[in-house]
């Protein structure tokens, strides 16, 4: 092969590598599956789009012509008030739209379905709740057996937005391993949600701290610690990887780190890069140093920190407690599916107008000192802080779009005394904008 041919090959491969993700597959509804006319082909949609521009241009010309005719017919009236009214209307629409949570955010790529572990609304038990973000409704609720708890529970979704794995703890005070379920969503089926138990071989004396299902739904990473449904200091954490199909343990690593009261989740925010690498965050001391590491789970090993590789680190100096503009550690730092960036939630403070903002950032691993703003939302002036984490609940593979949650708090006077009022928000964040949707308030949620 000549040098020129090699350059052509390198160029083509480099160009192809720029495309790192594809939008989700949208299959037609069941009834229309074999009716070719039922679903417009994308090429047909392209044709429509191609005519969209000219059609809009024609409409604009017609509107302008109409406006000129009207102006001409109203010769004695000055044109300025009309222009002024128009401006006011535009501002009002923009304000209304902004109040609604942002304009023009493309939400197509963000997952539609979620599984929430929370309290059953019409029942007196904990439940696995399956919801549809787009429709804004719950699809199905599966109450746990009496006494089933979510204290040591986990939930995680695969990349297809249809497959989830859930772990629930046994009844309080009852020894035994957690129960594992696979939740699958079939939007067009008569029973759109089906749950089956999974035979995961999990130690009976351990509690689940966090789980992450691989993108293809075949492997499950689990962080656990000895002891069920109760927090214990000084107990080392373990990361295990299981085959979802067989439930068998593939590999296990001990972290050599244990939870403390001040740092209850030293290992958290699990994610998968491909099908053989797990990313996880290690926090050495809260608000001081956070790191993200990757572990090749196709290889054997025993020591989580020694066998993994540091890919991102952030040092946050300790700051006076309660200071609004104090440096803030990155909340829920997740390694993206392409393994190229760490995304997280954070807050910023603008001294000029004295307002806080929730902000979601992507730190490219190649240039970690230059984070990219995925989106931010400025808070009203009376917001004095955020209650809990500004979290990343889901991210796309390249870290350009996330689903995040934030809980601004306001100091109020209630029953004659000071109190804190917290509001919960969840939204799709991308292109610098935030589009809110009704918050999902379960103890644990996976998208």
């Amino acid at each position, binding site marked *: 092969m000549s040098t020129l041919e090699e350059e*052509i090959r390198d*160029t083509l491969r480099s160009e192809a590598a720029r495309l790192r993700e594809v*939008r989700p*597959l949208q299959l037609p509804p069941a009834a229309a599956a074999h009716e070719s006319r039922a679903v417009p082909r994308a090429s047909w949609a392209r044709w429509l789009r191609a005519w969209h521009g000219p059609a809009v241009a024609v409409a604009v010309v017609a509107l302008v012509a109409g406006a000129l005719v009207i102006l001409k017919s109203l010769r004695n009236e000055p044109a300025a008030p009309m222009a002024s009214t128009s401006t006011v209307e535009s501002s009002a629409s923009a304000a209304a739209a902004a109040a609604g949570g942002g304009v023009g955010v493309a939400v197509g790529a963000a997952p539609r379905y979620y599984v929430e572990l929370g309290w059953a609304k019409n029942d007196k038990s904990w439940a696995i709740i399956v919801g549809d973000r787009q429709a804004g409704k719950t699809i199905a609720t599966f109450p*746990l057996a009496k006494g089933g708890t979510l204290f040591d529970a986990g939930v995680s979704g695969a*990349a297809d937005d249809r497959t989830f794995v859930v772990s629930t703890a046994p009844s309080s005070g009852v020894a035994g391993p957690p129960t594992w379920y696979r939740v699958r969503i079939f939007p067009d089926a008569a*029973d759109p949600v089906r749950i089956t138990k*999974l035979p995961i071989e999990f130690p009976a004396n351990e509690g689940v701290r966090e789980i992450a299902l691989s993108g293809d739904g075949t492997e499950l990473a689990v962080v656990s610690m000895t002891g069920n449904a109760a927090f214990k200091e000084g107990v080392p954490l373990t990361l295990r990887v299981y085959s979802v199909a067989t439930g068998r343990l593939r590999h296990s690593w001990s972290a050599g780190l244990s939870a403390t009261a001040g740092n209850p989740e030293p290992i958290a925010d699990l994610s998968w890069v491909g099908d053989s690498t797990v990313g996880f965050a290690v926090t050495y001391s809260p608000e001081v140093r956070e790191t993200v590491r990757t572990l090749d789970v196709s290889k054997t090993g025993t020591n989580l920190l020694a066998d993994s590789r540091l890919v991102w680190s952030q040092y946050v100096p300790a700051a006076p407690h309660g200071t609004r503009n104090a440096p803030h550690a990155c909340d829920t730092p997740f390694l993206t599916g392409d393994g190229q960036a760490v995304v997280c939630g954070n807050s910023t403070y603008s001294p000029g107008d004295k307002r806080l903002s929730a902000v979601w950032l992507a730190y490219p691993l190649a240039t970690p000192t230059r984070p990219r703003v995925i989106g931010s939302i400025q808070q009203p002036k009376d917001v004095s802080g955020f209650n809990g984490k500004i979290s990343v609940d889901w991210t796309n593979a390249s870290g350009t779009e996330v689903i995040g949650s934030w809980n601004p708090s306001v100091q109020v006077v209630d029953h004659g005394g000071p109190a804190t009022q917290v509001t919960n928000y969840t939204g799709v964040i991308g292109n610098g904008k935030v589009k809110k949707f009704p918050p999902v308030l379960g103890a644990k949620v996976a998208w």
Partner: protein
Amino acid sequence: MCLAERTKFPSAATFPVGLSLYYVDQMDTRAPDAAHAAVDRHVTALYQAHALSLARLALLMLGDRDAAQDVVQDAFLGLYRRWDKLASADAAPAYLRASVLNGCRTLLKRRPRTALPAAEECLESAEAAMMHTEEQRVMLAAIRRLPARQRETLVLRYYLDMSEDQAARAMGVSRGTVKSATSRAIAAIGRMLKEES
């Protein structure tokens, strides 16, 4: 993936504990359209496995991310509709690749007077810009100026590493046509690079 797993495990109804009986009954006694669900699963699994590589192939052919993804979606929808006519599931990847190449050709025929976007227009971020060296940007611009057939031969031969025979079969032309198109494409790129320097 999913079908294989389902055959290995008992249904939820056979599990004695975990969920209340009411819900367990509700979950498994109402059977779905099994055949449809199976196709759904197959196509979704294929999409997870092949969509990105096919979209990359289409991107090289079309130079347009959105159009590339449209073509790939079309190909998978076509597969979904014609699943029962497929000889075997193993034939699906080849069917998809042929379908994507056909879709690209059709799209390129429909826009004969529109040049493919230059490399610079496609770069959407500083990070993306850093991925190409200056030489690669010039090379990419040259590849994009080639006639569609010549560009396709380069993509098949040098991106997919196809032999001349394989490329000929994929394009539905003779081996000689592939050989001459490749040779002309390389010569044209050489000329364009010289002019550029």
